[in-house]
């Protein structure tokens, strides 16, 4: 490909990754500190820990697949599946602890009837609490969020690995062995992808104010604001990554 197309692909993939990270954060059931006491719906930790955990797991699977495949969709979807598994296991184990350890009923605090299963929620909610555990609707929303977030992280990794910091150019530039160049290229792509990903995920986390239940939460309506800010922040980050690649002679 000619350099201008490469630059456009890199910036485009970084923007897609950043916006998907933001969207993914809005879909996760994040409970924060109240959830640790079982008085709010969601997983008992912060948005960043959850999204970073999911994205890094996704990057593990994506980078493994990227060692033998150059198909962008295959790599991106493998990253999505990695995040998916991590988030699914986390939510399942959290529910096991809530239900069998604390004796709570997983119930949503924001809606009266579960939008997916149509089960009533309010009668099972402890008064003065904001829901408990991870009900069906939050679980499905969380799975969708992890899938989208992992896809975003992996597509960003793929673009940086193959177009912005390609191993072949490193070999030509510094006369390294191919194995060393591949390691450097993969590490650089992964760390830059994580850096851009967390910056976007944190802006999205500020938008939801720390806790959210999923797509049925009223806070989900604030989504366009986060997408707007994340678009511009990822645009800048994408351009800067291109500047690194251009000045470093990697394109």
């Amino acid at each position: 490909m000619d350099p201008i197309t490469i630059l456009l692909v890199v910036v485009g993939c970084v923007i897609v990754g950043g916006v998907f990270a933001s969207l993914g954060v809005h879909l996760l059931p994040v409970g924060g500190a109240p959830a640790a006491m079982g008085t709010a719906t969601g997983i008992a930790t912060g948005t960043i820990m959850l999204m970073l955990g999911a994205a890094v797991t996704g990057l593990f699977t994506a980078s493994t697949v990227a060692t033998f495949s150059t198909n962008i969709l295959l790599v991106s979807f493998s990253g999505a599946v990695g995040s998916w598994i991590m988030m699914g296991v986390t939510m399942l184990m959290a529910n096991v602890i809530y239900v069998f350890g604390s004796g709570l009923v997983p119930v949503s605090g924001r809606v009266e009837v579960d939008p997916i299963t149509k089960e009533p929620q309010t009668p099972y909610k402890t008064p003065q609490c904001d829901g408990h555990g991870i009900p069906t609707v939050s679980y499905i929303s969380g799975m969708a969020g992890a899938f989208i977030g992992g896809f975003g992280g992996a597509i960003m990794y793929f673009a940086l690995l193959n177009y912005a910091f390609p191993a072949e150019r490193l070999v030509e530039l510094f006369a390294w062995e191919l194995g060393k160049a591949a390691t450097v290229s993969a590490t650089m792509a992964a760390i830059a992808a994580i850096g851009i990903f967390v910056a976007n995920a944190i802006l999205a986390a500020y938008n939801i104010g720390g806790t959210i239940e999923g797509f049925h939460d009223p806070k989900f309506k604030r989504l366009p604001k986060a997408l707007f800010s994340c678009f511009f922040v990822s645009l800048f980050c994408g351009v800067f990554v291109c500047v690194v690649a251009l000045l470093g002679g990697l394109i």
Partner: protein
Amino acid sequence: MGEEEQKEEEEEKKPKAEFKFPPDETGLGIISAVIAVIIVILPGTWVPAVIKAIGVIFALLWGADSVRKTSKYGLGTGVPSIGVLAMGYGIIGALLGIAFVKFAEPMGPFSSVAALGGVLLMAVVGYISGVFSNHEKIIAMKIPGLERGMMELGMAGSIAMLLQFSIVAGSLSFDKVLSTAIGTGAIALMFVLSMMAMFHPYNACLGPDEKRPRTLVTSVEISGLLCLILGIVLAATATPVWGLGGVVDGVILIAFSGIVWLVFYVKFVKECMRESDSVVGTGLIRTIE
């Protein structure tokens, strides 16, 4: 006489801080930034790793102070988020910095000045994200000084990352940083421990009895730990034995940062002991019937 006694009592009630960070938040920011920037500007091969470690400590101190300043109002997502944001920007800024250095390398020995280009660009991105977060029509966090805080965090993160690259690789030259600091995976350690040095102090000390000296001492202590690990990485990966950027340089850095860690850890524990209140047994909480 009565008045004097009262005054003495008041003085006893208010435990004086054993030591003070003389500059206020703005002053500390400027002083740390200037020290760190000077160390970044000097050509990497002229400066021993210990001096660069001092630069890292100051840069992270600046970051920790900014985190304290912005998180005081309550971010809603926990203090760690803003420290992670700082290092997310820091990594991009440091990569930009080494790319600029490669661009400026043919111009002379002081090419490392160009690394500040990355720091300044990250300041711009930090400011923009601060405006997005604080603007009423966008995210509307309504935190006073968030724009400045995020700008400082982007800059502090980039400077700290650049200095750490310089410690491990010996200089800021593009291919050396790529092969020794990034290719070995040391960058992951740097990423995690630098963000720990920024967010952990305020995260651990926050509360109604939070005091600025104690918080900042924690930051220096974690930076010492970070430099200790960097020293081990340098000593393990360096090829020359003597001279700057060699094995001995790494060993000196290990000794220095070990002392820093020990001194500031002891100081932190003493501060905690002195500022803690005695807990009196209260028995079970009485239930209202």
